[in-house]
Every structure is written in structure tokens, then in C-alpha cells.
């Protein structure tokens, strides 16, 4: 008796639960049909947080534009864009976990890569395992792409495309530059670019009189800079992130270190570097993958570079830099590939990305066999009068190279 009485309500509740679950699943399916979910693992907290904010702003601007236009057109049906963010706390192993979680639990349709070369390389292994197309907005090192993964694509050219034009420019404009001192943050990207610089300097007949790495979180560079000063190089090349470069520049001024050419990568492209360094930013040269002064007429949702800059300024009341632009173009590229494929099928979208050959506000986009962009000509620029002035390529040149950093 007791059993019968108890079994009845259990059956009812089980059926109810099933019905509710079925309804929930149906609504999930229905909403999943209306949106395309993009996974974006970012270091929203921790030391890389400033970079995460830039990427997030780029993705958000693209998503906003895509949704304003009604969404992404997939075979005649419009899908809204939804970006799923996740904070991996500037911890590379966690970026791998987050990527896997997004693919398996969050059921995202496509993935953006985490910040920087190290995390992008680590996370790309997961994307490859699940055959998930991944666009990396901020990974430049060749080592990320030489795994020859099929599903990984990146919008940064290799590091030597930054250092080679820079060296050629210095060689042409500053003939008295014979000795170069290179100081690099002991971190994947800054060190890789410093090594490219060393190679490029040697190939152009310059003598590398100093090549040293400094540890992450170094608070003082005065002893190192005293040593560099004693070697009297005409070109001082420093790599690191904004904090490192501000610190080095201030301590160079403190020690009255002067040089014909001072190059810093990758801070001067950011407005906060120029604001924080003040007069000390003057004549610092640098190179990056994109600059707001570029003039491309693109086929992407943003159209021209000028339109992208305008939209960015309107939304964030600030000047965009290459990190913002790269994130936005990754979204725009996904949109074009999906629309061309006419499907959300990952393999079809992947194939469209692989054969892409298009001009965007970012520049011409074509990926090499390894997935890394090979069509872009990154600009060289210099801070003049508190503003970045493009020196190369000639097509977008805004001024001439000025010698002397005091």
C-alpha cells in the first residue's frame, strides 16, 4: 500500500521533470538557433588585464556592429552574435582549461584565442582536438603556428616583419648608427622580437654590443642602463610591456642616456604609454601590426579604416590601437567566413578561413599554410609631438624619421 502510494507521485514528478527538461532543452535549441556563440577566454584579472580590456573592447565593438546590421547572414537567415567571456586570470594553464570548458560545456560555435603567443599556442591544442576554428588576435610568434594545426589562424604577422623594416629605415636614415644595445623582457613575445632584432641588426651590418634579458617584475633597471651607457650604443632597443618600458625610459632620462635611435616594443603604440611617459616619449620609434592612420577600404563590416576608428572613438572615447583593431578584425573575419560558407559547420567555416583573400580595415588578409597571416605590411612609427607618426610603409607615411632621443 505504502509502495503504491509513494510510487504514484514519484511517477508523476518524474514525468513532470522530464517534460520540464524537454521544454528547457527545446528552448535551448530554439535560442541556440538564433545566436552564434563565440568563446573568448581573456586574462581579465592579473598582470595582463590591460591587454584583456583591449581585446574585449575590439570584440564588443564588432559584435555590436554585427548585431546592429541584424546579425550574421547564414544562408538567408540572420543570427545574432553572442560573445561568451571567461577570465583565465593571466594564468596560461587556466586558459587551456577555460578553452576546453567553453567548447564542451558552454557549447560555443567558434573560438577566439586567448591573449599573446604563449596562451594562444597552449589553447590551440584544445581547439585542434575538437576541430574548432580559432582566430588568435594577438599571437605573432612563429612557434605558435609551426605546429601546422588546421583550425588555428592568426592576424599578426611574424615578429621579423616588424624588426626588418625598422632596421632598414634606421640604416637608411641614421647612417652613423653602428652599435646596437638590446634589452628584452624574459617573456615569450618580447624575447622573440628581441631575437629577431638581433638577427636583423647583424644581417644589416650593425654590431650588437649588448643583448640581455631582464626578469618579469623587475623594479629597477639602473645598473643595467649604466652598463649600456658605458658601451655608448647609437641605437637602444628595448622590449617589454607598458610598465617595463615606462620604467626603462624614465631611468634612461635619469641617467642622461642619449642615443640617436631608441626603439621600444610594444608600448608606444598604446596611448597610455605616451600619456605616462610625457616628454620622454618624444622620438621613440616602434612598430606594430596596425595603425589608425592606415587607409584601407575593406569588404568587412567596418568597411574603411577611418570608419573603424570613428566607431571606436564614438563608443570608447579613445583612440584605437592594434590590439583593439586585431580583436575586431577577428570577429569580422569569422563573420565573412561564416557568411561565405552559408553554414555554421565548423569544417566549412574553417575552409573558408583557409582560402580567404580579402581586404579589410585591418589591411589585406590572407593566411599562409600554417594559419598565420602573410599578406600584411606592418607599419613603423615614431612618437613626434606626442603623437604616433607613421614612417613606413610609404603608402601611409605621415612624416620623416627624426634622430635623437635625450
Amino acid at each position: 500500500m505504502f509502495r503504491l502510494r509513494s510510487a504514484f507521485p514519484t511517477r508523476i514528478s518524474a514525468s513532470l521533470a522530464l517534460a520540464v527538461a524537454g521544454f528547457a532543452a527545446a528552448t535551448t535549441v530554439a535560442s541556440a538557433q538564433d545566436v552564434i556563440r563565440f568563446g573568448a577566454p581573456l586574462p581579465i584579472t592579473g598582470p595582463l588585464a590591460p591587454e584583456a580590456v583591449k581585446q574585449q573592447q575590439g570584440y564588443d565593438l564588432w559584435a555590436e556592429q554585427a548585431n546592429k546590421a541584424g546579425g550574421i547572414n547564414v544562408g538567408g537567415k540572420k543570427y545574432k552574435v553572442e560573445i561568451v567571456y571567461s577570465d583565465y586570470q593571466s594564468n596560461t594553464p587556466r586558459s587551456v582549461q577555460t578553452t576546453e570548458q567553453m567548447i564542451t560545456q558552454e557549447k560555443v560555435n567558434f573560438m577566439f584565442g586567448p591573449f599573446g603567443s604563449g596562451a594562444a599556442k597552449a589553447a590551440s591544442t584544445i581547439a585542434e582536438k575538437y576541430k574548432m576554428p580559432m582566430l588568435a588576435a594577438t599571437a605573432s610568434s612563429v612557434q605558435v603556428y609551426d605546429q601546422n594545426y588546421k583550425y588555428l589562424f592568426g592576424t599578426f604577422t611574424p615578429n621579423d616583419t616588424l624588426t626588418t623594416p625598422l632596421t632598414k629605415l634606421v640604416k637608411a636614415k641614421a647612417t652613423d648608427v653602428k652599435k646596437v644595445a638590446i634589452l628584452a623582457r624574459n617573456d615569450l613575445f618580447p624575447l622573440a622580437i628581441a631575437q629577431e632584432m638581433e638577427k636583423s641588426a647583424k644581417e644589416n651590418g650593425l654590431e650588437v654590443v649588448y643583448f640581455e634579458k631582464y626578469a618579469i617584475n623587475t623594479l629597477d633597471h639602473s645598473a643595467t642602463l649604466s652598463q649600456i651607457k658605458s658601451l655608448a650604443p647609437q641605437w637602444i632597443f628595448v622590449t617589454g610591456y607598458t610598465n617595463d618600458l615606462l620604467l626603462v625610459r624614465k631611468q634612461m632620462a635619469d641617467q642622461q642616456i642619449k642615443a640617436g635611435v631608441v626603439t621600444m616594443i610594444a608600448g608606444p603604440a598604446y596611448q597610455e604609454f605616451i600619456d605616462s611617459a610625457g616628454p620622454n616619449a618624444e622620438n621613440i620609434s616602434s612598430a606594430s601590426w596596425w595603425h589608425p592612420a592606415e587607409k584601407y577600404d575593406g569588404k568587412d563590416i567596418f568597411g574603411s579604416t577611418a570608419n573603424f576608428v570613428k566607431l571606436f572613438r564614438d563608443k570608447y572615447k579613445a583612440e584605437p590601437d592594434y590590439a583593439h583593431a586585431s580583436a575586431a578584425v577577428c570577429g569580422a573575419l569569422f563573420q565573412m567566413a561564416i557568411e561565405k560558407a552559408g553554414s555554421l559547420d565548423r569544417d566549412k567555416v574553417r575552409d573558408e578561413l583557409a582560402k580567404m583573400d580579402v581586404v579589410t580595415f585591418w589591411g589585406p588578409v590572407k593566411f599562409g599554410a600554417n594559419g598565420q597571416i602573410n599578406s600584411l605590411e606592418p607599419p613603423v612609427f615614431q612618437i613626434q609631438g606626442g603623437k604616433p607618426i607613421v614612417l613606413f610603409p610609404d603608402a601611409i607615411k605621415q612624416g620623416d624619421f627624426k634622430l635623437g632621443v635625450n
Partner: protein
Amino acid sequence: MLAIQVLINALVLGCLYACIAIGFSLVWGVLNVINLIHGSFIVLGAYLAWGAYNSLGLSPWYSLLIAAPAFFVFGYVLQRILLNRVITAPVLVTLTLTFGLDLILNNAMIYYFKADYRKLILNPPTGSISIFDVVVPIDRLIATGAALFLTFLLYLLLRRSKVGRAIVAVRLDRDAAVLMGVDVKSIYAVAFGLGAALAGCAGVLMALIFPISPLTSSAYLGKAFVVCVLGGLGSVSGALAGGLLLALVEGIGSVYLGPAHAVTLSFVLLIVFLIVRPQGLLGRKGFE
């Protein structure tokens, strides 16, 4: 000439390191609390100097006069309301509490100031003094002078004032101090307030030299920790000696072994001290 320059750099930097560490050492020495909020206090002090200079045109020297009492009150209240509740608990409990408080303060700073880097740029710039080829930046010299002055002031306070003697007494023997009529809870709060005030002032001075960001708090905390262990807890002069030793090792290490090894070298030194001389260079039982 390079050797003289490196030596002078190290002397100046050593005083700054001592300034970072002195408040941390005081709190650790007297309260037996490893204060993990110390780095964030320093960064907050730096923001105070930056904000006062940029929005009110206040020179950092005036900011020092604001920072000292403001941080003292902040530290005093924090100790009275929160830390006092766990002061007699095992060290892990106080460590966890200060870690939690640091997370709150640090994230609040990230929220309000963003994670971007800022720099206090004095106009006109202070410039540098050069004698032959040796150059010393004036802002560092001034910061060094201020750091030494603060250290001396603390030394005087602990040696000559009634409250200072009470702090030393509590450090030496808490129970005996109670029997002598010392209000231990107040003394703990005063010591913590003094530690916070010193951190705030150190922040104002650091703003003249280093870029400001909430993310730099861990670097300051790390330095304070190493300086305390090298110099020895319970000694004002120990913090100075520890700072100088650390700066010298880093400076010489970065010239002869490369800057990448300077930090490693300082941590090797830390381990050696912990094994061979755990009391540090000048460590004593009482804080004086």
C-alpha cells in the same frame, strides 16, 4: 666609472627598498602579523600623490603630509575592527585575513583606477646631478633623503616617546607589558597605523620614480619581504641594511651576470640567510 655608478645606484635604491620595507617590518616585528596588504597600501599612497598632483597641483611633499595621518587612521581603524579579532590566532589565520583584505583593496583599485599604468610627471622635471660621468637623479636623491628621514623619525619615536617604548615593550613581552599597565590593543593598533602610514608615505615617494598600477603591489610586497628577512625583524637599522644589501646584490648581479639573474640572485641570498642567519643582518628581539 661604471663600478662607481653601480655603487651609487645601489645606495640610492637601497634606501628606497628600506623605505618600502620599514612599515612591513614594524608590523611583522611588533604584531607578529605578515601584512600582505602592505604592497597595496604603497600603491594607494602612489595614487594619492598622483591624484593630488594632477588634479590639485599639490606637490608630492605636501602629499606626504596628507598621506601620513590618513594612512595612520586607516591602518588604526582596520586593526581595531578586523585584525584585532584574530591577532592571537595562528599566523595562518592573520595571513589569510590580510590576503583577503589585500584582494579587496587591490581589486577596488583596479576598479577605480583601471589596470592601466600611470606616471607622476613633475613639471618642471627635477633633473639629475652629474659629477664627472656619474649621474644621480635628483628625485631619487630627494626620495632617499625622505626615506632616511622617515626611518630616523620612526627610530626616534620608538626610542624616545612613551608610545614607542610601549610598542617595544609589547614586542618584547606582551604579558609583562599588560602587567605594567600598557593597553596592548591600542598599542597594536598604533603600530599597525604606523606601518600603514609608512607604507603610504613610501608610496608617495615611489610615485616619483616608478610607474603606478595596482598590479605593482606584489613587486613592492616581494621586496619588503626580502629586505625584512635580510635585514632582520625588529630593527629599524636592519631594514636599512637589508635594503642596501638587496640593492647591491641586484646591481652587481645585473652587471656581471645579466639582469635576468638579478632577481634570482636576491632570492638565493634570501634562502642562504634563512639557513645560515635566520635572524638577518641586524635582527634583535625588540623593535628598536
